[in-house]
């Protein structure tokens, strides 16, 4: 009797458990899959009054919900219509939640429709962190690449540039920001305008490093200004005498501009001692003989080519210690066949890797980038470049 009763109880228990398992499996397999995901994003104003002291937690939950919502729709329908609402509500509850400002930019900018919303959230963030370099940097990127407003972009990049900590940790970011500022300013101004822009920036800086950076920009644009003018003269069909007259005019104009804007302190030469002259090969240069040194703003193209040629010869001098053939001998062979003669000396097991060469850190090896076109990674060897090859080096390596 007792056994029968226990058996009946066990049977009922098993049946009920089986029922639970069966129904659960059914729901999991069918109902949930078909179910449309419903989203409810409460209005930010309502949330602000109904969080009952847990603003921060609700903001966190909304943020997490936003991220999971994004992940759910990523590569499915890419429809993120509620995303901005979630992020906005999150920052209204917790305006110091910097992560939302930062990441909402990344997530919202994946869809053109949400650029405006990303801007709104970011501007809200900038209202709470007006001097934050990171948010200003993001705003700069947003306006530069997405909303195409160079004025605003420059304003934010400048703020970011002014507030980013000058530490080794942030060196990379600082360089990116300065590159962006340079790119935007170059787009909207000529060389003289750029020089004045950096001069103004220099005068408003208190940080020594920032001042030095501005000064270097002034020097760079001054140099470029001269290069352009000299190139112009060089390529013209004027006689040498006419060219000389023209040089002096350019130098005089250059001096005038510098003196008018008090820029003399930014270049390493005495502005009064500058003069234009063509060298023995007929190339125009600007000289200054202050402190017995010769400063020149030459034709960049030729100047760089010469530097690269010297550089490559020096490199080969180094590499030939590994090789069974000298560079001088190698140059005598047909360029197509040279590779056949490049053999390692028996005492070396393998050709030095790029990293090994790079790690030398000699002065002349610092210019490693132009070498890449002559380095055959598959074979692990360097090809001897011809002077004409050097001229063909892509501008980006210069």
């Amino acid at each position, binding site marked *: 009797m007792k056994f029968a009763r226990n058996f009946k109880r066990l049977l009922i228990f098993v049946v009920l458990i089986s029922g639970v398992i069966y129904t659960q499996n059914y729901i999991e397999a069918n109902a949930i899959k078909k179910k449309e995901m419903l989203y409810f994003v409460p209005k930010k104003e309502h949330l602000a009054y*109904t*969080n009952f*002291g847990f603003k*921060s*937690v609700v903001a966190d939950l909304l*943020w*997490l919900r936003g*991220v999971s919502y994004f992940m759910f729709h990523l590569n499915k329908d890419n429809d993120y219509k509620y995303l901005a609402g979630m992020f906005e509500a999150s920052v209204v509850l*917790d305006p110091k939640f910097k992560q939302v400002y930062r*990441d909402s930019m990344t997530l919202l900018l994946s869809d053109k429709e949400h650029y405006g919303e990303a801007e709104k959230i970011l501007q809200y963030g900038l209202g709470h962190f007006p001097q934050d370099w990171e948010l200003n940097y993001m705003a700069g990127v947003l306006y530069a690449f997405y909303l195409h407003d160079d004025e605003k972009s420059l304003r934010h990049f400048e703020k970011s540039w002014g507030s980013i900590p000058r530490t080794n940790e942030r060196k990379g970011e600082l360089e990116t920001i300065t590159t962006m500022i340079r790119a935007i300013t170059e787009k909207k101004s000529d060389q003289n305008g750029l020089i004045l822009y950096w001069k103004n920036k220099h005068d408003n800086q208190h940080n020594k490093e920032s001042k030095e950076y501005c000064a270097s920009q002034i020097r760079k644009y001054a140099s470029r200004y001269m290069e352009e003018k000299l190139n112009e003269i060089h390529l013209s069909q004027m006689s040498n005498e006419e060219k000389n007259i023209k040089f002096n005019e350019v130098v005089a104009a250059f001096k005038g501009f510098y003196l008018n804007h008090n820029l003399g302190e930014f270049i390493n030469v005495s502005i009064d001692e500058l003069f234009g002259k063509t060298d023995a090969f007929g190339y125009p240069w600007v000289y200054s003989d202050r402190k017995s040194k010769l400063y020149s703003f030459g034709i960049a193209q030729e100047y760089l080519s010469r530097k690269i040629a010297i550089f490559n010869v020096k490199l080969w001098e180094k590499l030939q210690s590994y090789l069974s053939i000298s560079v001088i001998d190698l140059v005598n062979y047909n360029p197509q066949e040279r590779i056949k003669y490049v053999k390692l000396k028996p005492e070396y097991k393998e050709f030095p890797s790029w990293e090994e060469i790079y790690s030398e850190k000699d002065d002349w090896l610092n210019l490693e980038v132009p070498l890449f076109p002559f380095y055959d990674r598959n074979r692990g060897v360097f090809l001897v470049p011809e002077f004409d090859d050097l001229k063909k080096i892509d501008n980006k390596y210069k």
Partner: protein
Amino acid sequence: MVVISIAKNTFKETSRNKISLVLLGLSVAAILLTKAVAYVSPETEQKMVIDFGIFAITFFGVIMAIFNGSNLIYKELDKRTIYTVISKPIDRYQFVLGKFFGLFFSICINLSFLVITFTIYCLIIQIPLSLSFFWAIVFIFLQICMIISVSMVFSLVSTPLLSATFSLMFYILGYWLEGLKELLILIENPIGKKISEIIYNIMPKLFYLDYKYQASHGLPIPTTDLIYVGLYGIVYICLFLFLASILLSRKEL
């Protein structure tokens, strides 16, 4: 001495409550799971761990204060055990104070356990806690004292269920008033505005005692703020305990 004896008894009584242990266990679990929540967004880990940790601590404290506080005196009245106490030469306010401190210490010990667990947990997972965090905890304790005292008042005028509901409303309203303050600017009707202003000025504002946000971001809290807000909380607690004493003394026992 009388107050201490009553407090001791209340402490023993509330400590035996199994629901407290279950809630405590859940809160510890919630604290230990904060890291998992933050896992979704690693860069906000510090903020999220602190937010959810404080949430667990507050939630436990508030629920315990509401449910124990609502039953505290009502049970004595209902089971008539209060007669054994008041038949002795003690004042009603001493009874109220004893009950209050008994429950407060009981919750205090549980909450302290949660705070210590959370602090150790943060040390293990290398999440720095700012001074603001500890101030936020101090003011959570003060909020809980306010809720205990107000629920004691409610328990003297209604049933435990209603009393718990009123106490919960008190807590919600205490925070909602922050929103009401902002809404006051938008109200155009002069009568409505006046009524809202009266409600705002009369009701205890729990949001004054809320430093969770500062704890979450490690923002400094001015010392003068701490003093005034602390005093504000203490004065309200005294007021509610005083009211509870009056209500108890008016009861025909």
